């Protein structure tokens, strides 16, 4: 057992570092062709790299201040594109993979819908086959990067008479197709984050954009959502990004707030949680290094990390007192070199309610943990049996409904 990371003198590290020193400003295409965009993929796109090499490449890329391809085009590289390796046609691989991993074509996920929420399988967007193409109608929501994307990974219902999960198929659509409208969502902080609503009206999708077979949409999408990239996920408050408990303690120390015994005790609890979450991330990395298949521990980590992050930014906000209610007022002097969207403590606080909602709500995660890791009985879903168009007849789009209900 050993808690240290691969050393400076590791030959693999030396080689990768040399490559970056030879190319101070590599293009996405160069990175992709070197296999550094998707090192864990097979050739020609990757290096069939094990987790340790992937980690080294991550670190050396950071060291060279090259923005990581998986942050440039996260949906393609972290989740979706690899499905083409198994389910795609040669033509699809040829057409889509290199531009995707080179970051030349940004991808987005057209999965969630207003009426669906956690119940993704109940989605209502319909793709009707007409000769050599499909006609798509429906609405998607919480689509990150849609406004920057060329390609949308769409899950739509091709067989309304099949049970909810069986009738779904996946497509790669052009976001600039006629009938696609992208509308940004303003969150409660008032900021325009990267989320969008996407409206699909009579959108024509060529049949050769179907991924895998009709009816495979659910299986393919689930695998894409569960893909957990090997990475040293930081214990930042917002899905690993943003300020961590370490920065909280450092900040509280700077402003002298640690002299307050109540703040001290709360900060210590958060510091300990943060350090343990860091170790848990290391551990799952180490499991991969020992060729253990990724299990549902990812769900445990997020189940723990999300409320932890909320508490971290909440304590920082609370020590501000009245001033904390003023927009853009920061609790601490900024951490040098931290310029991410969530590194703004004030924004991170107001954004934080999202972290127990996005990427699986806290309730769903606890179901996953309880059922898949502790063998508790599955939740009973009466709407999972029988034809979708019978089990999901009447309901209104949730947003309108919700608004009405909330008396807004």
């Amino acid at each position, binding site marked *: 057992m050993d808690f240290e990371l691969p050393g400076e003198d590791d030959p693999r590290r030396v080689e990768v570092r040399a490559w970056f020193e030879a190319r101070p400003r590599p293009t996405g295409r160069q990175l992709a062709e070197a296999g550094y965009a998707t090192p864990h993929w097979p050739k020609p796109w990757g290096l069939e790299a094990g987790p340790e090499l992937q980690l080294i490449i991550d670190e050396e890329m950071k060291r060279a201040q090259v923005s990581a391809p998986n942050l440039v085009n996260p949906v393609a590289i972290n989740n979706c594109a690899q499905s083409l390796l198994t389910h795609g046609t040669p033509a699809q691989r040829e057409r889509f993979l290199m531009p995707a991993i080179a970051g030349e074509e940004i991808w987005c996920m057209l999965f969630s819908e207003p009426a669906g929420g956690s*119940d993704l399988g109940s989605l209502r967007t319909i793709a009707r086959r007409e000769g050599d193409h499909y006609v798509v109608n429906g609405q998607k929501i919480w689509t990150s990067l849609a406004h920057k994307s060329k390609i949308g990974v769409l899950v739509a219902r091709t067989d309304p008479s099949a049970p909810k999960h069986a009738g779904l198929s996946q497509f790669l659509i052009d976001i600039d197709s006629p009938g696609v409208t992208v509308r940004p969502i303003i969150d409660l902080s008032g900021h325009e984050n990267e989320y969008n609503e996407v409206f699909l009206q009579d959108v024509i999708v060529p049949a050769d954009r179907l991924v895998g077979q009709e009816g495979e949409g659910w299986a393919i999408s689930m695998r894409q959502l569960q893909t957990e990239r090997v990475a040293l996920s930081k214990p930042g408050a917002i899905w690993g990004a943003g300020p961590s408990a370490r920065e909280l303690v450092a900040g509280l120390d700077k402003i002298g707030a640690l002299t307050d015994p109540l703040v001290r005790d709360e900060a210590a609890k958060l510091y300990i949680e943060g350090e343990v979450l860091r170790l848990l991330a290391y551990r799952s990395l180490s499991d991969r290094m020992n060729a253990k298949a990724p299990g549902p521990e990812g769900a445990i980590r997020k189940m723990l990390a999300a409320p932890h992050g909320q508490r971290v930014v909440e304590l920082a906000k609370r020590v501000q007192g009245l001033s904390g209610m003023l927009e853009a007022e920061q609790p601490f002097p900024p951490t040098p070199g931290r310029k991410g969207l969530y590194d703004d403590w004030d924004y991170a606080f107001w954004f934080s309610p999202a972290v127990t909602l996005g990427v699986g709500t806290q309730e769903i995660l606890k179901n996953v943990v309880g059922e898949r890791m502790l063998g508790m009985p599955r939740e009973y879903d009466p709407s999972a049996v029988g034809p979708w168009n019978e089990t999901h007849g009447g309901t209104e789009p949730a947003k309108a409904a919700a608004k009405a209900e909330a008396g807004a």
Partner: protein
Amino acid sequence: MNFALDDDHRLLKDSAQTFLDEQISLKPLITPGATVRDANYADNWVKIAQMGWQGLLIPETYGGAGLSCLDLVMIVEELGRTLAPSPFLGSLLGTLAVIKGGDARQKERVLTRVAAGELTLALALAEDGGREDGPDKARAMQVGGVWRITGEKAFVIDAAEAQTLVVAAADEGGNRQFFLVEAGQSQVQVAIQPWRDVTRQVCTLSLDGAAAEPLAGDPGDVWPWVRDRALLALSAENAAGLRHVLDITAKYARERVAFGRPIGAYQAIKHALADMLGQAECARTSVLYAAWALAQEDPRAPLAAAMAKAYSSDAYVEAAHRSIQIFGAIGFTWEMPNHLYLKRARGNAELFGAAREHRERVIDLARAELA
């Protein structure tokens, strides 16, 4: 012993409810980019003035309704339920200071006009440190028989709507005194702060030798009396806002379907709502008790007010956050009202002292009680 509201209380509450539901809307604020400037403060205040709420606590001698803290709670609960934007709270705080601190002449001059809806007040306590209980860096000194105040005040509720400001400043002896200051004079600058709760206006004051008239009463009596009533008003907003958040969330949970069942069928949601109801009941009970104690000028009133503020602000913040969790991602968007309640809850939690500060006071007051 009788916890039930009297008929006149119920009447007052019902009329307030009908009025607010019909006359005041949050629509302009749930449009992305909205600020407190979009809140129709002025129009709403005109309508409210017609209801006479600004004179609720003003003695009848000065044209007010001469009602009690219990009556006040009936109104403030409805304002807290609807988040109806208006300078009601700010003007109330100024009015309280004059009721307690003004002499007959000052009351005659100020309160009659407030009651008549001709004058709006505000109360300037905190400075950039953000504590309403002082100390005041703003200094008041007599120059040729005229008092003049120089300094900066902050977190002044509804100051931009007020024609007359009640300002806390330190006299030559360094002691807090309360002064009437005309907002119109050139030595007074008012600026709206970027307060996250866009249903409430919060301002800074810059005073540069502004002419001021001291309130006659002993400042040592004014502050605690005003504070306890301010705590009551904020707590009443909290309790009613919490209850409303519960109501819209429970309705949503009964109707929103996931995996073939209304989400309220799942214990994670059902039990969270049960907890919220428990908190709502406790918050409201603590508010009614504090209102009763204040109305009676009961010696337990300061303890009751501190308990109500400490309990209700923690519970409100938690419930408002839970409601977003239960609504799901949609409740996280600006277009939904949920965030307005979260922001009101967070703001109220900090105004007039955070929960933990009031718990400190509760322990001290309780020890006295128990001894």
